[in-house]
């Protein structure tokens, strides 16, 4: 909620806010259980995994790239962390090992994209299968249970009544938002997204920045993976596999341009919350899950189209005024 204030009052922000409020109103009408503290808390226990992955994806998309391997990176890290945890490794070490794996995943993506120069969609499509394959090989397709109870804190604990993972999400969002707005690195990310060649000529170390972007994305996927492992006390290779499309949709819904150069993490989080609320409302109202697909697709298109219309409208008015 506090993130809403941080959104600059841009057009997209207003439309997004309207959609957000609209869904809250519908939810309140549709089910008396929707606007209860218990339910809000449970939404914030469910959505941070997707939220964290989506803000990582936002960073990559801002550079004009894309990371289709983010979902399977999450699954691979979940499996690695799960294997380490069940082998009796200390928790901190297990998480570190999975983070190291995430850095490697990010590096591989960055090498393919930044060094070799493969279009990001295709490079990460290949690594998507590669990481999923690796997760399958490591786990033999089995789900890894018997995760030590001490690890449950990450996904099942609450601090002052707020789920820990929601706090992590907020922290990460704030940090990345500050980096994007106030730091040189953030400006470089946006510059690359706007025009990679021009920014290279003006002294941005494109390769280095892209490496950082893909590594950040993979590391965030890894954090999301660890949270999910903790929340459901199980590690599976297919974790995060179904997150990819909703995450890209949420990034776009949040106002980040898929061509790069424009965007922010705050909007992405609102986008993820909107999707989480939709499925929550439908579950509460007892509506078949099939309708969820329809609803999320429609909302994505409606919001984007509406955005575009108002934008064009504004442009035209400005043109008239300048005439």
């Amino acid at each position: 909620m506090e993130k809403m204030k941080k959104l600059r009052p841009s057009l997209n922000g207003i439309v997004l806010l309207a959609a957000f409020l609209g869904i809250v109103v519908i939810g309140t009408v549709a089910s008396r259980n929707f606007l209860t503290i218990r339910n809000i808390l449970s939404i914030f226990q469910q959505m941070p995994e997707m939220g964290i992955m989506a803000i990582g994806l936002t960073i990559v998309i801002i550079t004009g790239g894309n990371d289709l391997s983010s979902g399977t990176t999450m699954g691979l890290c979940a499996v690695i962390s799960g294997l380490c945890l069940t082998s009796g490794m200390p928790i901190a070490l297990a998480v570190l090992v999975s983070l190291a794996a995430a850095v490697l995943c990010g590096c591989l993506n960055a090498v393919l994209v930044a060094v070799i120069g493969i279009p990001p969609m295709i490079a990460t499509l290949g690594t998507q299968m590669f990481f999923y394959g690796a997760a399958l090989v490591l786990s033999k397709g089995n789900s890894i249970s018997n995760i030590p109870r001490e690890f449950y804190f990450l996904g099942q604990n609450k601090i002052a009544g707020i789920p820990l993972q929601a706090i992590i999400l907020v922290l990460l969002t704030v940090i990345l938002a500050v980096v994007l707005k106030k730091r040189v690195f953030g400006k470089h990310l946006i510059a690359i997204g706007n025009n990679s060649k021009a920014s290279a000529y003006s002294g941005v170390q494109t390769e280095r920045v892209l490496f950082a972007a893909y590594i950040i994305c993979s590391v965030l996927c890894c954090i999301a993976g660890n949270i999910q492992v903790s929340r459901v006390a199980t590690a599976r290779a297919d974790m995060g596999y179904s997150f990819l499309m909703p995450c890209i949709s949420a990034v776009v819904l949040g106002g980040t341009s898929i061509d790069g150069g424009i965007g922010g993490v705050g909007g992405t989080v609102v986008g993820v919350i909107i999707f989480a609320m939709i499925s929550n409302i439908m579950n509460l109202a007892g509506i078949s899950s099939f309708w969820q697909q329809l609803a999320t697709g429609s909302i994505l298109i409606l919001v984007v189209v509406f955005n575009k219309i108002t934008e064009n409208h504004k442009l035209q008015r400005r043109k008239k005024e300048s005439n």
Partner: protein
Amino acid sequence: MKKLLERRETSVFLILAVLCIGLTIYSPTFFSYTNIKNVLVSNTALGIMAAGMTFILITAGIDVSVASQMMFSATWLALLSETPFGNPVTLVLAAILIGFVTGAINGFLISRFDIHPIIITLGTNSIYRGIILVMTNGRWLMNLPKYFTAFSKTVFGIPLPVVYAVLIFLVSAWLLKHTYFGRSIYAMGGNREAARYAGVNLKKTIFFTYTYTGVLCGLAGLVLDSILGNCQPSGSNGWEMNVIAAAVIGGTNILGGYGTIGGTVIGVLMMGVIENGLVVAHVPTYWQKLVYGLIIIVTVTIDVLRKKKADSKKQMIEID
């Protein structure tokens, strides 16, 4: 000859040839009539969609709703065949019509509002899939009538689906090479602004591109249903990525401006041979996805590196 070697398709074709030869040596059954027929037939739907995807990628667009469009058509066709109106003629007409509608919706939204195609098609992807799932409640439509499965008969040793695919490839290649529409597509993907100044109607071109792909997806739905003899509305999830990968492996530039149907056919065969080869070469089950991903990464890397080398050579010549 030199020109042929320089083409992007050539390196992929060579990799494909090496793969095929290796597989044949490893397991002679790979190069048998039945196996080749199987590889071809089971990739016809993919190939037909990939032909459309090539058009879209050349315009620097993308369509992640192709699999949903195909299943949308496949499901409606299966439902149609359960009614008394079902006969071969109505099936074909319906396949074209349904594909036209789904493709035109994509095309309209993208061209009218000038929104990035991946966003629109991400949305329509879930909408089309959602509609058929809600309609059928996930029910499989079993035992399609004989006249439906007759579409995939084998005549004189040649499976009909392959014939359809070849026809569609020919028509698509002709459209791309020899029509104003095709030239507009290349012009647009090469340089949008320049194309606009040269008098290309961008909106119309985009609309036609997505509609054409929609029609191909509709037909792919017909072919898929007739091959399988039944329809699973929740099926072929995630095929859109295979379709995109096939086109790109075949040398189509995902950033627009370059691509050929011939290359896409090679890309489709590549995907089909890998899938088939993983089983034929007895690759252990858990390793298959990993090997699959690896082959794609390697193929694309080789392709990109070759292109880079060629480009730098060209630049040197220009400097000279």
